[in-house]
């Protein structure tokens, strides 16, 4: 934990940002921030840099007057214009620190809006409280996921569907692969939030106002009737959407880590087999075998390599587990999110590592230099440390602003793990090759001398 009063180079973003990743994973849903115009513009920019997609987030554009007299009128105008301009099927309203500090009652304003505007009545408006000073983007994500099922899930007829809740930020490509897995398992499923298309739109020459894809509202409503829920990315976070569905509607919930590496992926597969009652298809067993093969191929290169892994807590825990499986030596394990559960779990997996939560890159950089780290794995935000300390950095997870392909980065499942082994090994090799020959160990004497 940081002893410092000031944060130097943040390793976390604010709550509303996380909420967008959920709202944009709902079919036809448009996010709206209740706050000053800058919040939506900054976060649009931040997300556009990462996903390389247009990202529209509306704002209630609070001004000085609103800050004094309350922002209800702005929020209503904002909702009206978003509905008129974008024709969304749902609107997710996230608060910002400004709206929370002036004490706006968002739920009441939405109720009033629905009474005043008949146009809005068929459009679910999902409010979520995301004051930036409370927690990080990770909690903002969880809060929006919970708010979504809370607002929409309705008991009706029992179904044999499985809810797969994505509990942490993963790439569109990872979501696509989770869906493929469920289809290959012949499971009827509801996956939420589904950003596989909404943040990774195929180029068609046309641009719909609200991107196509996302979890249909009907399915989210039906999630109360499923036979079970699995949340992947639920190691270190507080109870959320899965627990809510269990408590309210009796849908049994299984909290799992993100399926990163061999054993965490095995855990998901085992749980799926148990819930669905069918064995994992042979092609996945083959993928698993190929992963083992890739691991064995690279094991000597990776053995005892001192690593630092940082970023979103769930992703870090998954990669940490994998590093231990590979015989690597994690020395710094860090997240910007405050989480005791993270610290405990990471400490158990890597007793020799410095485990840090609620830290900034100044702390991370200090630990890295003190522990002789040879490889960094995490978001691009570690680049200044990597450059200053001449350590290879493998860019993984969110955010990634300075390289292409963040949307297509596959991290989950056996295939994702195989890619990660290769990438870590290659990052080390490329770094070694870049070191000029004279800095390497002296070459053996030429023959004949």
């Amino acid at each position: 934990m940081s002893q410092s009063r000031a944060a130097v180079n943040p390793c976390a973003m604010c709550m509303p940002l996380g909420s967008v990743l959920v709202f944009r994973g709902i079919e036809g849903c448009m996010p709206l921030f209740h706050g000053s115009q800058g919040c939506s513009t900054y976060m649009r920019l931040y997300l556009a840099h990462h996903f390389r997609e247009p990202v529209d987030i509306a704002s209630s554009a609070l001004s000085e007057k609103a800050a004094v007299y309350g922002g209800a009128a702005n929020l209503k105008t904002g909702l009206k214009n978003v509905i008129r301009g974008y024709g969304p099927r749902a609107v997710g309203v996230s608060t910002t620190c400004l709206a929370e500090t002036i004490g706006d009652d968002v739920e009441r304003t939405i109720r009033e809006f629905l009474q005043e505007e008949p146009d809005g009545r068929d459009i679910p408006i999902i409010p979520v409280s995301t004051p930036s000073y409370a927690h990080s983007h990770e909690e903002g994500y969880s809060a929006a996921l919970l708010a979504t099922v809370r607002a929409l899930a309705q008991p009706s007829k029992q179904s044999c569907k499985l809810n797969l809740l994505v509990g942490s930020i993963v790439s569109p490509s990872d979501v696509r692969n989770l869906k493929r897995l469920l289809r290959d398992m012949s499971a009827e499923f509801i996956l939420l939030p589904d950003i596989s298309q909404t943040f990774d739109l195929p180029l068609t020459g046309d641009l719909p106002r609200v991107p196509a894809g996302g979890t249909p509202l009907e399915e989210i409503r039906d999630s109360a009737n499923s036979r079970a829920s699995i949340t992947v990315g639920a190691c270190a976070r507080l109870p959320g959407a899965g627990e809510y569905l269990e408590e309210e509607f009796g849908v049994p919930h299984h909290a799992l880590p993100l399926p990163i590496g061999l054993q965490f992926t095995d855990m998901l597969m085992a749980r799926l087999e148990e819930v669905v009652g069918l064995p994992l298809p042979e092609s996945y067993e083959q993928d698993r075998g190929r992963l083992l093969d890739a691991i064995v191929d690279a094991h000597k290169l990776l053995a005892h390599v001192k690593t630092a892994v940082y970023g979103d807590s769930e992703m870090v825990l998954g990669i940490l587990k994998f590093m231990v499986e590979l015989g690597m030596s994690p020395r710094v394990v860090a997240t910007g999110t405050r989480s005791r559960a993270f610290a405990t779990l990471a400490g158990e997996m890597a007793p020799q590592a410095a485990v840090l939560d609620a830290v900034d890159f100044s702390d991370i950089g200090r630990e890295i230099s003190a522990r002789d780290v040879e490889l960094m794995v995490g978001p691009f935000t570690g680049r200044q440390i990597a450059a200053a300390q001449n350590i290879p950095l493998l860019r993984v997870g969110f955010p990634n602003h300075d390289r292409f392909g963040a949307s297509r980065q596959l991290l989950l499942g056996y295939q994702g793990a195989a890619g990660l082994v290769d990438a870590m090994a290659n990052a080390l090799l490329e770094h070694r090759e870049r070191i000029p020959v004279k800095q390497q160990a002296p070459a053996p004497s030429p023959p004949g001398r």
Partner: protein
Amino acid sequence: MIVNIFEGREGHIQQKGESPLPLACSNESLAGAVSQRACVYSGARVVLNPLTDALHLVHGPIGCASYTWDIRGSCTSGPRLYRSSFSTDMKELDVIFGGEKRLLGAIRELEERYRPPAIFVYSTCIVGVIGDDLQAVCKAASEELGVPVLPVQSEGFRGNKNEGYKAACNALFQLIGSKDYAPRSPYTINLLGEYNVAGDLWRVKPYFEEMGIEVLASLTGDGRVEDIRRAHLARLNLVQCSGSMTYLARKLEERYGTPHRRISFFGLQDMASALRTTAEFFAVPEMTARTEEIIQRELWRVEPQIDMIRQRVEGRRAAIYMGGAAKAVSLVRAFRELGVEVVIIGTQTGDRDDYRKIGIMVREGTVIIDDANPLELRELLQKQKADLLVAGVKERFLAYKLRIAFCDFNHDRTTEFEGFDGMVNFAREVDATINSPVWKLPLKRESPLTGREEMICGGEDVSEPCCG
């Protein structure tokens, strides 16, 4: 009206020749319309951040510092402190009990750790609401530490970027005049509103030096606190990004009597006239002659390159959407040099005068738009049949999805666009994107089965493959 998506936006969009009314522009954006504008804080931050050796401390929750960490694209020839982002990381308790103590603690700690020549402290939305006294804390810290600690009153909701520019200028103004200096040349200038994005400044400054002029301070690209402190000694202020820095230029004129000229370093014509304007001001025959020599030499060098590219892009249609009006105006002239027609032009924060000026410059049929949003831009790009959009990152992917070429004229560009060589870079980039083969790749794959249903096995049921 050419597009009509939101009620209340009518006056902000105009096609030249269509209506004689002046274009509406206001400080408040329409709620729900997804304005491309940011906030007061962002305005202050973009102006001050390029000051390379200053410490930039954001008083607020973590987000405001996260989203502005090292995003400016401004280069440095030395110090790198500006590439770090500092925040007081306000939490719930600070919101309840006030954040002044936390702020003072953070300033002390950071000063001791980094020993910066100056600290800028930015206020964010909630600081304005909970009422922390930024001025008092900064004053106390400044006295205690013996370092300028400058408050930047930039609560996000108190207006738009323009207010942020002013807040930044006020902070700079406090710094200016605090240091004495004996200039090396009798001809001294400051460059205001030059942010050294991608190294622009280094494509410009050598010409002034060649003219015998000493650039005392660059505000703020590749800037140093020490240089800013002596900026009052310059005889002339050249103002490039007029939206952000005219306010400071006027204040300097008032206090120190330094005259200012508005110039632009972008485009051959504008670059040449920037140098001429400066030489005219000093009115020294040798300098005037030298300036003409430089201009002739440089034009002779780059014009053939521009002409070659001109042949490849002439007649194409460009759309411009910029933060400030100065760049937009300069772009219109530069496109003229390339024979490219401007069909849409808009800005986030232009004022009445800016739009009047733009209205005179552009051709009939050009759409002028204030504070545009993605829906309007999308429709306009299609209706005006634009081949190219020049804007910032938020707009880039909108253009790409519509298969329209794009050129970044904002923080994210990696080549210099200013100076004579900068114009060549710009022309090259326009050419590279407009004439790329990627726009002609087929959107739909040609299938041997298209229109030949009899070939599909199983008749109606396309899910069953042929097997014999």
